């Protein structure tokens, strides 16, 4: 047994991130670690790499009980980690990066020749023949990954942790990377592979550990775990059923199309998406993490360029270069991460709410405060936003109330299409069903809602139709009458075979 984690628990400020999680793996095994956002994968990894201290539980590594108090200790014990954003010194050479922090020395000076020779040797093992004196920044993402792996090999790592290493690689690069990982495996190194593309997991890994809600919910050999089963374990059933709010598709069929994507693509993340949103419907967008849901929303909203395919708004072809253009066309977007690109924390509720409405609120450049106050009061009441006053800084509100303010930011502009990305993330159950009901009644009044969600229950309850994305392509459209947990899971587990 290379690694055995038992009963691991960790809380942050009273909120449990891990609740008795476990993980076991043998030498030379490639273990897939999967789970939704917030399942506890990263917390577990961070404890393993010494970034966090555990609250409870036992970890034994290479036959010894361990408890790392710093990343340095974990590395010394033989655990190496390769993050998504590779942490190499971009302007230093490949050789210097491989030996960063433990440079070979001769007579007290750096042994440059030794470094170059050593680096060449290691990279040769991975069939990589590159100029090791060139800065890392000159190479593509796959090569940088390889350099990072080579670095861990020279550190005599026994366990290699890879966090979504393929997310920025193309197919050919992925193949090279996998060959490297298999080489490592043959030499007895254990690998924990965190990823979301199921095909890759099945192609590479021996076993899989599935986490949900801070616990390990299933462990098994990759071959004995059908895709459907794996996805079902990952998503689980979280909440008691929401009230069914969706409408059957035949009621919707005659409604005119409002937003239409055909063969839409941009970069590597969005390859080929077909999507329609009709007037007065909630169109759901489902898919596993990394399937390109938020990226599709970014294209519609003018944050990323539509590089391939077409987009139509009320029948007319459109491409937006800036969100401002999408907004002018009547599109609004409530983004996935409130803190990063939603709220302006120092501004008041009032100022946050009217941010997108300002151009319509001005008279000769001056904000019409009377109208602004009237609108803000109306929405605070209508959405039942709990606050001391409209002039309270938004950062003092709870997550659910912040989300309502952000919804109101768009609703007050009277949009035609509202895109909501994970509209109920991080807010409590009461507020969740309140927000879903609100979206429903807005749709009934004619608004077109595109709802992106990881929560099956939420989609099944509120959406009139669900488009499923997988690896950047739309793979299924489920009308209301064909919607079921099983159908949705099957579609999400679909991979290009």
């Amino acid at each position, binding site marked *: 047994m290379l690694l055995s984690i038992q009963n691991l628990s960790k809380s942050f400020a009273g*909120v*449990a*991130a891990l609740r008795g999680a476990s993980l076991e793996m043998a030498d030379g095994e490639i273990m897939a670690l999967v789970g*939704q956002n*917030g399942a506890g994968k990263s917390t577990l990894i961070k404890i393993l790499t010494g970034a966090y201290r555990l609250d409870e539980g036992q970890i034994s590594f290479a036959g010894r009980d361990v408890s790392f108090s710093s990343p340095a200790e974990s590395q010394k014990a033989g655990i190496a980690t390769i993050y998504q954003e590779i942490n190499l010194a971009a302007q230093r050479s490949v050789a210097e990066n491989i030996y960063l922090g433990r440079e070979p020395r001769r007579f007290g000076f750096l042994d440059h020749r030794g470094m170059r020779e050593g680096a060449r040797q290691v990279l040769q093992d991975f069939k990589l023949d590159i100029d090791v004196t060139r800065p890392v920044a000159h190479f593509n993402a796959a090569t940088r990954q390889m350099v990072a792996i080579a670095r861990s090999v020279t550190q005599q790592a026994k366990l290699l942790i890879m966090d979504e290493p393929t997310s920025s690689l193309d197919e050919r690069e992925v193949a090279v990377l996998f060959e490297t990982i298999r080489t490592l495996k043959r030499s007895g190194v254990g690998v924990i592979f965190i990823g979301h593309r199921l095909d890759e997991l099945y192609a590479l890994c021996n076993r899989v550990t599935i986490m949900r*809600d801070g616990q390990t919910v299933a462990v098994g050999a990759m071959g004995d775990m059908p895709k459907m089963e794996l996805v079902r374990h990952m998503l689980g059933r*979280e909440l008691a059923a929401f009230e069914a709010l969706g409408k059957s598709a035949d009621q919707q069929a005659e409604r005119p199309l409002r937003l239409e994507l055909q063969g839409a693509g941009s970069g590597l993340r969005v390859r080929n998406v077909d999507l329609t949103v009709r007037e007065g419907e909630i169109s759901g967008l489902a898919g596993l993490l990394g399937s390109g849901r938020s990226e599709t929303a970014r294209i519609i*909203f003018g*944050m990323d360029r539509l590089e391939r395919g077409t987009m139509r708004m009320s029948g007319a072809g459109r491409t937006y270069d*800036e*969100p*401002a253009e999408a*907004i*002018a066309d009547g599109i609004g*977007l409530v*983004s996935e991460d409130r803190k*990063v*690109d*939603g*709220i*302006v*924390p*120092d*501004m008041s509720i009032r*100022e946050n709410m009217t*941010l*997108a409405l*300002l*151009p319509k*609120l*001005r008279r000769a*450049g*001056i*904000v019409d*405060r009377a109208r602004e106050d009237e609108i803000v009061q109306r929405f605070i009441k209508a959405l039942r936003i*709990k*606050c*001391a006053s409209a002039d*309270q800084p938004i950062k*003092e509100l*709870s*997550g*659910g*109330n912040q989300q309502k303010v952000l919804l109101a*930011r768009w609703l007050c502009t009277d949009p035609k299409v509202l895109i909501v990305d994970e509209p109920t993330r*991080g*807010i*409590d*159950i*009461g*507020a969740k069903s*309140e927000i879903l009901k609100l979206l429903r009644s807005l749709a009934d009044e004619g608004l077109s809602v595109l709802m992106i969600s990881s*929560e099956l229950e939420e989609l099944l309850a509120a959406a009139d139709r669900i488009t499923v994305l997988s690896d950047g392509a739309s793979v299924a459209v489920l009308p209301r009458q064909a919607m079921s947990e099983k159908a949705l899971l099957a579609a999400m587990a679909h991979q290009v075979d």
Partner: protein
Amino acid sequence: MTITDTSSAAPTVRKLSSLQLASRYGTMLALLLLILFNLAMTPNFLSWQTVNVNLTQVAAIVIVATGMTLVIATGGIDLSVGSLMAISGAVAPMIFLDTLVPIADPVLAVALAFVLPILVTMAFGWFNGMLVTRYAIQPIVATLVLFIAGRGIAQVITNGNLQVFKNPGFQFIAMGQIAGIPAQVALMLVVAAAAFAVMRYTMFGRQVLAVGGNEKAARLAGIPVRRIKILVYVISGALAGLAGLVVVARNSASDANLVGLGMELDAIAAVAVGGSLLSGGRANIIGTLLGALVIQLVRYTLLANGVPDAAALVVKAGLIVLAVYVQQRADRS
């Protein structure tokens, strides 16, 4: 999925900690203490002349610092203001001294001497804005370009010569009086009041704060982030140009080596002491005004009581450290 209880939480009533109070009213308090101290200790403090000396000393700083406040509110900084002052200070006398082209009508010459230099510094401000937005250069580096080159440009224009002049029409901006108030002080108050109104009542002011408070969110709300940023650098350039005119008019001379020297740091200091966050998202114009007054008054107090200017600099530095410390602590609590 973590489930945090939210909607049931009662709205919190805000209580200000002593640190937050200090950060909000500290500058005002410091100013009052300084005035009280001077009333007790400095002979002849309560005279029209003392007030005038202090206010005229501070006028140019406040004008520049007002523009700086807007730039800082977007999360940027403008190091070029001192050099831009030198440029406008160099160009203006050349116009009414007919060094460039002879202008027959003296009134027209003076009018052009007010307008053209400011247009020139606005263009340089636009250049700063383009570097920051289109070429995504960090503001501190982008404006360093003109910090260095700007003074050189001013020296090249004037061949490094000192321009001495006497032109009552032009110099009214510094020497004149409006209703008994020195014209430059009136100008300072008008600039500060206008900026205050812009930040408080206009869409532009709101958008400046949104860009500085959360640039991504601002862009997603359809705010023209680039245009806003370019505009604040243009405004900063215009105000620096104006301040340059005030300074040369006051001195009856323009020396490209000296006009606006070190002004960028005085302006930044006034903004910092005045309570605007250097990370952006806030613009406290009144604070900037008070901050500039505090810095000036500290210097005056020390000088009037026989402490050398060098020591005054150390005290100024100490003030800045204290102000920034109080703000950061207040923000974290």
